[in-house]
């Protein structure tokens, strides 16, 4: 394999991993609070549509902002139903995702017409980090990426700090481990859980936005194609820790980027469709083997 191909593969891995990592960071926050957010796929899709509309109206950064807001509004529905209203988390999350699929499809048709595929959205061009991008191999892979990738990497310590160094993080984790104990200690369990879900929705929304603004450059119906669900697998693989989530997202990114690599090098031993399915198979494998000693928050998917 020549170096150029390796660099292309590495860069694709990082690019593809970005939306996954953002969504997984969001899901990790939500799950640490005890809410299994199956609506994360819906938040990503809403974020993608919001990003497309925002970017066309006011440029790519407006797209990021609108995408984040759209992701949060989808999460708001889940927070109201599953946390405030104490409905079943699995059902509410599924409903949010299915609702988002329908709603984004409808809005997209209204906004963009049926042309769809031809839609061009202003994108966030890759930005090189001065000096670092000159580093051989690593430079072009890591330091010539979209600003949203840098944002993602910066968010990892921020989320870790939020979870482990702040009173809010302590309250959130307590609500996710032992809602009764948290309540006895004076934690407003539903409030912190709701905030966790909203924060998660915001990050998933940015994740969806990055898909449109830094990867695909257009919006199509159902374009997230299960990335939200893969983010849930990533959280398990990353053991509910932001750093773990980033690394696991890179692994899934690599599994996806593999198809680019195979196509580019003209290898046809494995059918193209199998490679497309690779990340999903990997997700299944992760969830089935439950990854060693990883332990979910004790009250995950349980209402108080």
């Amino acid at each position, binding site marked *: 394999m020549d170096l150029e191909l390796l660099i292309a593969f590495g860069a694709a891995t990082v690019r593809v991993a970005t939306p996954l990592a953002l969504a997984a960071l969001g899901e990790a926050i939500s799950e640490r609070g005890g809410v299994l957010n199956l609506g994360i796929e819906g938040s990503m899709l809403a974020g993608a549509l919001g990003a497309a509309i925002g970017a066309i109206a006011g440029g790519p950064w407006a797209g990021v902002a609108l995408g984040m807001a759209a992701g949060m509004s989808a999460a708001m529905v889940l927070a109201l139903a599953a946390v405030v209203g104490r409905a079943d988390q699995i059902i509410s999350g599924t409903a949010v995702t299915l609702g988002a699929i329908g709603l984004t499809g409808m809005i997209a048709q209204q906004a963009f017409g049926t042309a769809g595929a031809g839609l061009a959205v202003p994108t966030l061009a890759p930005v090189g980090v001065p000096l670092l991008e000159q580093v051989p191999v690593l430079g072009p892979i890591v330091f010539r990426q979209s600003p949203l990738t840098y944002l993602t990497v910066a968010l990892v310590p921020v989320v870790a700090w939020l979870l482990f160094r*702040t009173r809010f993080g*302590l309250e959130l984790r307590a609500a996710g481990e*032992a809602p*009764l104990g948290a309540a006895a200690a004076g*934690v407003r369990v539903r409030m912190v859980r709701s905030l966790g879900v909203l924060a998660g929705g915001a990050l998933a929304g940015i994740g969806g936005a990055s898909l449109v603004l830094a990867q695909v450059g257009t919006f199509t119906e159902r374009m997230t194609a299960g990335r939200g669900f893969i983010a849930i697998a990533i959280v398990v693989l990353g053991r509910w820790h932001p750093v773990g989530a980033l690394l696991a997202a890179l692994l899934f990114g690599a599994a996806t980027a593999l198809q680019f690599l195979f196509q580019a090098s003209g290898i046809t031993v494995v059918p193209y469709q199998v490679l497309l399915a690779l990340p999903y198979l990997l997700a299944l494998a992760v969830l089935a083997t439950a990854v060693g000693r990883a332990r979910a928050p*004790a009250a995950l998917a349980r209402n108080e």
Partner: protein
Amino acid sequence: MHALLGENGAGKTTLMRIAYGLEIPDRGEIEVGSESRTASRERLASPREARALGIGMVHQHFTSIPAFTVAENVALAAGWRETGRRAMSRAREVIDRLGLPLDPGAVTRDLSVQLRQRLEIVQALAAEARVLLLDEPTAVLAPPEVAELVNVIRRFAAQGGAVVLITHKLREVALVADRVTVLRDGRVALTGSVGAFDPRALSAAMIGDDPALAETRRVSDTAEHEPRISIAPADQEPIVLRAGEIVGVAAVEGNGQRELLRAIAGVDSSPPGLSLTVSGSVAFIPEDRTTEALIGEFTLVENQALGHLDRLPRWLDWGAIARDADAVIRDHDVRTTGSAVAAATLSGGNQQKFVLGRALGRDPEIVIAENPTRGLDIRATGAVHGRLREAAGRGACVLVHSSDLDEVIALADRLLVMHAGVLQELPRVASRSAIGDAMLGLSREPR
């Protein structure tokens, strides 16, 4: 018909579970049957064997499966091989034989509570039971439904069946039973024909009367001390609890004491009809160490932080919190390998010492404790009592509830009794039987 009486934790349910093969006794012997067929052995291997010997049990909670039909539930409980239509007709036979009208095709979920209770009895008797064990079967029933249940039991007894009824309602004993046994701390405190005892004798036997313990009370005069908590039931004189006193709350589980304590601790809102005034900083020691007081998977340091959430800055200084946790571990003799271990790795006694130390660490003006020594051995219990007395000695107002009346009496300077949500103060020198009567609502003055 035999009634089995006792306080919570006296061992009633355990005894019946042994008789039904669900629990293994440490020692003793079980004898089943009459002259014709006697099986005597040290234990029953399983409920299956108990059923084969003609023992049926109705548990405290419903065991029928809501999604199943009545016939399916009966077939499951009786271990029939038949399914579908044949189970249906066999269930109908059983129902007719027992004279307990039920539609075998009805889905259990759709039945009323009364009918579900009836189904539980049919399940217990389906395998031709001769002995029926009933564990608080009336807990979920309203009075007319209780009467119906009593009729069913009487009919079973009249047909030659033997019944053991677990209850802590004295009224039911007089209503139903021929004989009565009172358990206390796993021992028989009294047994005989129901007619031979009045309710007071039964309540005294349930609660025990040991005058020696009363002398361990601490005498102190706190009448002039600063008021800390005032509990005012609607249109009544408020009960005022003051600094420096230990106030014990005696009550049978489920009489509103939990709600009251939690309302004073600021964890729950006030129960209706009581107005509370709380002045001072409050430390709350919830009764369940593993689900409420501590989060098992969190380290002691994290638990230390959770214990003082209201005083925590927005950005945490884990170093300072760890020093606090270490101080608690040192001052309260908590046996642990350090403060960075998960709370679940500590023994119950050491967990409780940590919980108490954490709560008392900042000299709270009010201490609220629910069953602070549940599950602890004598040494740990003594340590906890010592700490609570110390806190009162430093001027805290300590409010303690324990299901163990001995503990309440041993600790308290003043004694409150709660029955059915109504609080009354008893004189410090009240006899144990007077306290017992008040706990069971026998001596409540008419209001």
